């Protein structure tokens, strides 16, 4: 098997699974119970929260565990608008967002909110002046993905944060799902930051929203205090602990891991460039972990299935978006409908080996010839 779909999900690290299993067995109590079993669970949650906070350089009280990044994004957006609906009805975002942001925006639009999408330059970067122009006294929220999941476009959240510092009433939410564990993350100028465990070799079903202490949010799951007041439900200490572990492991040796991916990405680009009719949509400013390409004349689903039969796994658009024909992100950045219609995403990990890349390229070239030949018949 050659797995090149790490941006859809990663496989959990064995130590993370161990952490989950051990917690289930050793700390079975309900952390809300006042007896010893409950207190033990509570203390473990405290330690897990502290670890996450320290790794991200925030306070323990600023960590809200969620079921994943989609919930974190929903909590960030809905929690803000519910809290500040009287302040204004204007939200600013981009077309490079994950569906859990885009579709929440669509929902809000139907409910009377004004949603503005920022202009992007040819690299997919937010045009800073456009942000300045669009901000108004009605604006309550700016929500921007740190790293786009389809192309790997990275936004400079510090520059954006600097601009938004001048607007203390505007909440700045960043979806960091594809950034955390891959590139250095500095949360000093961000109000809210979403992340997910299963993108960093952790388990599915857990993630977090970082909420700076001076930021107010309305809970979207009511029911009293759990790990935090922002999300009710019996605290799931096994998932929290596994997330703390996954986050720690993902940040270890980060430079070496990054360099390995840079090397693989360079090799992949070099080889793919020689294929006729292939366009590389992710430019050199994108993170090396994601390489989005378009293959002229071949339906992406067909290529995906052909590779899948050879146990090579890549993706078309992102695993989360539904089956619209065009990739909104690719269209937005390349402005080419053909590229947006035929895009494939290859996503790499530090675990990827050179021989996997070699094998992928060999099979990919064969399949390209084969599928084009068939089409010609």
């Amino acid at each position, binding site marked *: 098997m050659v797995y090149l779909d790490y941006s859809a999900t990663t496989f959990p690290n064995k130590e993370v699974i*161990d*952490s989950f299993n*051990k*917690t289930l067995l*050793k700390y079975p109590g309900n952390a809300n119970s006042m007896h010893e079993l409950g207190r033990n669970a509570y203390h*473990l949650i405290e*330690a*897990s929260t502290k*670890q996450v906070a*320290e*790794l991200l350089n925030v306070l323990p009280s600023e960590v809200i565990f969620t079921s994943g990044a989609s919930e974190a994004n929903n909590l960030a957006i809905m929690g803000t608008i519910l809290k500040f609906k009287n302040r204004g009805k204007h939200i600013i975002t981009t077309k490079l967002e994950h569906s859990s942001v885009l579709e929440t925006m669509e929902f809000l639009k139907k409910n009377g909110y004004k949603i503005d999408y920022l202009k992007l330059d040819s690299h997919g970067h937010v045009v800073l002046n456009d942000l300045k122009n669009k901000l108004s006294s009605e604006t309550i929220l700016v929500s921007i993905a740190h790293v786009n999941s389809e192309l790997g476009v990275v936004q400079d959240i510090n520059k954006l944060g600097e601009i938004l510092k001048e607007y203390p009433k505007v909440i700045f939410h960043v979806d960091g799902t594809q950034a955390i564990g891959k590139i250095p993350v500095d949360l000093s100028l961000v109000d809210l930051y979403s992340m997910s465990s299963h993108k960093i070799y952790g388990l599915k079903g857990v993630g977090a929203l970082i909420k700076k202490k001076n930021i107010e949010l309305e809970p979207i799951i009511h029911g009293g205090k759990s790990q935090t007041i922002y999300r009710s439900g019996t605290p799931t200490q096994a998932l929290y*602990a596994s997330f*703390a*572990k996954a986050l*720690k492991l993902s*940040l*270890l*040796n*980060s430079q070496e891991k990054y360099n390995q991916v840079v090397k693989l990405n360079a090799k992949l680009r070099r080889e793919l460039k020689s294929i006729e009719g292939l366009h590389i949509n992710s430019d050199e400013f994108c993170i090396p972990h994601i390489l989005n390409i378009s293959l002229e004349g071949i339906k992406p689903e067909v290529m995906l299935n052909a590779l899948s039969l050879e146990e090579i796994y890549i993706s078309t658009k992102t695993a989360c978006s539904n089956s619209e024909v065009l990739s909104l992100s690719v269209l937005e950045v390349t402005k080419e409908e053909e590229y947006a219609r035929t895009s494939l995403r290859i996503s790499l990990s530090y675990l990827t080996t050179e021989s996997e890349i070699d094998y992928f390229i060999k099979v990919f070239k064969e399949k390209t010839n084969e599928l084009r030949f068939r089409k010609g018949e």
Partner: protein
Amino acid sequence: MNRVILIKYGELTTKKGNRKLFINTLYSNILKKLKGLEVNIFKDMSRMYIEYDSLNEKEILKRIGEIFGIHSYMIAYKTNSNLNDIKKTISEVIETSFDMSLNYTFKVETKRSDKSFKNNSMECNDIFGSYILKNYSNLKVDVHAYDILVHVEIRKDFSYVYINEYKGLGGYPVGVLGKGLLMLSGGIDSPVAGYLALKRGIKLDLVYFEAIPHTSLEARNKVLELAKKLLVYGFDMKLIVVPFTKLQEEIYKNVPGNYSITIMRRMMYRIMEKLTKRFKGLAIINGESVGQVASQTLTSMKVINSVTNLPVIRPVACLDKLEIIDISKKIDTYDISILPYEDCCTVFVPKHPIINPNLEHCLEMEANFNYEELITEIINNLMVIDITSKESEYEDIL
């Protein structure tokens, strides 16, 4: 950039004969203390070097600040042993450590362990000094009153540049002087006594005298919390819980009130002597402070102490209460110590405990009941708890 933590040894460097033992003990203590933080440690006779993942830098620095036997430590930037690379590294160190919009004075101090290096130390100081002057208009030389002391260490394979030195805890590496048993009551003084004993390189096991149901389980948990605080500075500690109820009750039945504390302390010392032997200790350590209470007058101490020949170390003997409190706040035990649970020294307190007890009287009173049998029973029913740190409690999970 390649950063390492450089550790300079403390007082141990003056003890020539034991140097190797000291360094090895310190090395193994540092290893234990940094367990789980993915470090590589290298040692030579004058320094230790720790390679680490920058992710853990803060935590590692914090923990090194909790290890006895370290004189000072610093983050050193490793570079190649040539003038150009060293200059580049000096720039990086200065720019990452100081606000470049402010003015500073500086001094360069070069040490050259590689004597074959083409420039001598003085020449190096000049070269690096003028490099800094040329490149940073906000930095001026002042070799007496400097804000920044730039250290350069030139070795054969590589060199180090460092500026900020952190002061270590000093003292001796815990364990070099063997083990002592600390009488840990739950009050303010005994944890401080333990801390000071650790500082002089004494490894500790802890002894808690428990008189359930006169004392509560909360009191034991309080002692466990204190033990965890001491474990920050110590290693592999056990808490020995002594079932003292029966013996204590017998004392109150058979001994007049004014002597009960004196006799109780004599019994505790007898038990301590047996435990010290059993747990391979060399001394008894406690938090007695001269004059603080009736059992801590010199006369009382003499009468109580006469049941054992073991050295009894009283690290806080000559400290004022306020001095003891200061230390207990520093080591974070104060807030636990003042929790209001009874310990076995505070239950059954007589109205007027004797301050000048007489040894003959003690012996007469003790002849009234068979305490030896009770002590044997106690020794056979000890509860021994391994103290685990907060970090290691979740070590296999987080």
